[in-house]
């Protein structure tokens, strides 16, 4: 992704709007008994589309905003979402996956990392109460729910960032075949 002033502005707007939507609407809707948490999906989608550095910075800012707005311990969500954004970006940089379902796998992995990361940090900060196997159930249900939501969230993020994505693999492939210039058939 080309990092320019308009691109940063669009990323900031995407972060602000999605975080407000997350806090005021999505988190008050529960499916499978767990509240919707789209934060890891949004951050992973941005990282997957824009690369590791923009992904990490976006994850940090998104997490800091959430921690501030919810009066939570500052740094917990930003640390976890920084890792999620960076990781998703590295997947793209190292593998450049062109499969249409790649965002689903990335979304599921991002949710798992975010849920386990926050759980781990909570234990490190000292949870003063017994912990049951329901924690595992909650994490699994969140991963299942977010896996289902990964594609639509990715599609929205991609749509927003589309003008700044010159080398999107799927677009590149589609363009190649429709223009005829780079098609393997025409070359043959």
């Amino acid at each position: 992704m080309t990092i320019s002033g308009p691109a940063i502005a669009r990323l900031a707007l995407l972060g602000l709007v999605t975080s407000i939507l997350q806090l005021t609407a999505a988190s008050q809707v529960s499916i499978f008994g767990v509240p919707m948490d789209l934060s890891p999906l949004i951050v992973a989608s941005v990282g997957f589309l824009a690369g590791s550095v923009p992904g990490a910075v976006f994850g940090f800012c998104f997490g800091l905003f959430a921690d501030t707005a919810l009066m939570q311990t500052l740094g917990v969500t930003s640390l976890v979402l920084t890792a999620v954004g960076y990781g998703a970006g590295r997947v793209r940089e190292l593998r450049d996956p062109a499969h249409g379902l790649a965002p689903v796998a990335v979304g599921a992995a991002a949710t798992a990392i975010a849920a386990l990361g926050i759980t781990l940090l909570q234990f490190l900060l000292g949870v003063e109460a017994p912990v049951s196997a329901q924690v595992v159930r909650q994490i699994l249900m969140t991963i299942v729910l977010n896996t289902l939501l990964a594609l639509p969230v990715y599609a929205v993020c991609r749509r927003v960032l589309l003008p700044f994505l010159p080398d999107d693999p799927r677009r590149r492939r589609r363009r190649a075949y429709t223009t005829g210039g780079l098609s393997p058939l025409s070359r043959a």
Partner: protein
Amino acid sequence: MHDKVVRRRRAVLALLVALSLFLLTAYFGESAGGGLHATQRGALEVLAPIQEGANKALKPARDLFGWFGDTLDAQDERDRLQRERDQLRGEVAQLQVANRELEQLKGLQEINTAGGLAQYDPVTSRVYQRSPSTWYQTVTINKGSSDGVKVDDPVVNGQGLVGKVKSVSDGNAVVMLLTDQDFGVSALAPRRGEPGSITPIPGAGGDLLFDLVDDAEKIRTGDLVVTAGTSSERLPSVYPRSILIGKVKRIDNGDGDLDRRIHVSPAADLLHLDIVQVLTKPDANLQADATPTAP
């Protein structure tokens, strides 16, 4: 060139991680009146109008999603309610007998809890924001210190106890829900007369533990659990007496009495909070106790 890119990428990551760890450490170490907490409260004041507006605008969409969820759960809910109805019919018969006895006892005993929740000066407010994390069970409401809301004030809704005020700013307050890992309240199973303590099961959103019960064997599934209120002048409770907390959902029998775990489901639907009340004078009944009654 490649090395430079790699170095820059790693430097950015290291900087962000270090910044997060610094914030975490500083925030964790400072008091509630510290700089970072104050900044958070300031940011909350600024963001509150935007979030409140977005919350109102998005209510139809939220209700639509909620309707789908409710429809999926409707059949289970119906079966459960039918079982509950049958059980309640039996209890009504028992209560009618008990009620007659109570009527006779009323004339002999002064009951200071008369007046319901109105005596605690409730402030009605709307929930406009909720934490999505299982670990931070908080909601934000649109009433704050200018409306008389204070830190630690109990919060209820029509169904029962919701939580307590965790932090307050001029026009908003953050409410810690019953299921937050830092929550705890002294409780009582009135049917058995057994006191204990209600604590959440962290990460298990919607499940509570009725702990520290002297005679846990007496507790049965379906028993109601209410706030115990203040039982010692030295250690006053922030919660008034007899506010419904929830119902005993399940009892896990361990190897011995100490391993017995009593699970309680909250009476209030904490996932769909809309209107709540903050009890700004939770000790009103204690003050009434202290006031000499007219002969």
